[in-house]
């Protein structure tokens, strides 16, 4: 397969090397001249010394026939724009973006880039399989909407503990989808009271995330 990699940092370099070793065809775009020379020295003529966020260089790199474009620069805005250009201008069937700030996974998905990789998130998942107590964790965006799924745990001392759902003052458009209590799913309606130890799943418009947090945790 043919892969275009945007960004020749450590991630881009090792990715290109690994793909070449498994007999794929690779073109790596790197805007820094000296860095591009270093990579060319090591990997051969698979480097284009040019910025990947400009359409003409994506064309020069052959994005029109690429099976995938992978944007792995250290800048999230650049990775977003590179992927959007590849999708819109070159009709690349698959685009993958590295996100440095894990919050941007949700942003990228909302803006049409479905495949993201966050090294922070990968490491976090290894360290903590569990939600920290009293935690509030935006889980994932729902594709094709501006909604996201949030998981929260009601701990002792959480302001919403003991309150009915109807009295929480959740933002309009946000809803508690379910409660996990002692390992079982409890139906949630306005009269249901939240108890200490409950894990809840909230559906919320992405823009109202802060309002949901306030309603639950004060």
């Amino acid at each position, binding site marked *: 397969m043919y892969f275009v990699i945007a960004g020749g940092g450590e991630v881009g370099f090792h990715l290109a090397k690994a793909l070449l070793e498994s007999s794929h065809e690779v073109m790596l775009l790197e805007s820094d001249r000296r860095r591009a020379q270093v990579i060319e020295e090591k990997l051969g003529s698979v480097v284009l010394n040019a910025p990947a*966020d*400009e*359409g*003409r260089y994506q064309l020069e790199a052959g994005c029109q026939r690429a099976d995938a474009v992978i944007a792995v620069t250290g*800048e*999230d*805005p*650049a990775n*977003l*724009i590179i992927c*959007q*250009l590849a999708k*819109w*201008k070159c009709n690349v069937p698959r685009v993958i973006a590295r996100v440095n*700030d894990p*919050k*941007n996974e*949700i*942003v990228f998905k*909302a*803006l049409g880039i479905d495949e993201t990789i966050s090294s922070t998130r990968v490491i976090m998942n290894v360290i903590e399989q569990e939600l920290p107590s009293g935690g509030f964790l935006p889980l994932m965006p729902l594709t094709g909407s*501006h909604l996201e799924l949030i998981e929260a745990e009601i701990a002792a001392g959480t302001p919403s503990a003991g309150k009915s759902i109807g009295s929480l003052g959740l933002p309009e458009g946000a809803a508690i989808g379910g409660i996990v209590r002692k390992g079982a799913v409890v139906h949630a309606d306005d009269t249901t009271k939240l108890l200490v130890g409950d894990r809840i799943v909230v559906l919320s418009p*992405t*823009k*109202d*995330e*802060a309002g949901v947090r306030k309603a639950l945790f004060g």
Partner: protein
Amino acid sequence: MNIVIVGCGRVGAFLAGQLDKAGHAVTIVDLDRGSFVHLPQGFGGTTLLGNGTDLEVLRTAGIDKADAVFALTQGDNRNLMAAQIARQIFGVKRVIAKVNDPIRAALYRAHEISTVSRTTILGTLLEAMLMGDAEVGKVLIEKSKAAEAAMAGELG
């Protein structure tokens, strides 16, 4: 109107000052505290230190209640990201991004983001001035001169 401006360089600061004077509620965001010196004296809006492509920072800036958002940092990509967050995630009606690369400016315009390219706007104006075509920049130049005179006047 509630207006959020991302990027407090010369353009962002100038626009913030004009809109503040016209009575709008302006919040201006920049990564560098030092950049707020560009704001005119007596600026009555809010300054916020932070990254204008960060969801939390934009929320703090009040983007969910903004009537208009301008993305005016020095980076085209940052501007396009901030503008898309405003338009697509927060549903802000009027969003304008400064995008100096004409190709990206045209492409994103086709995707619901109003873009303004200094490259083509200034270039077109300069060409018209050289060719003696006064029509092209007539109103623009008059208004700019008035704003410049006002700013110079304020400095005494």
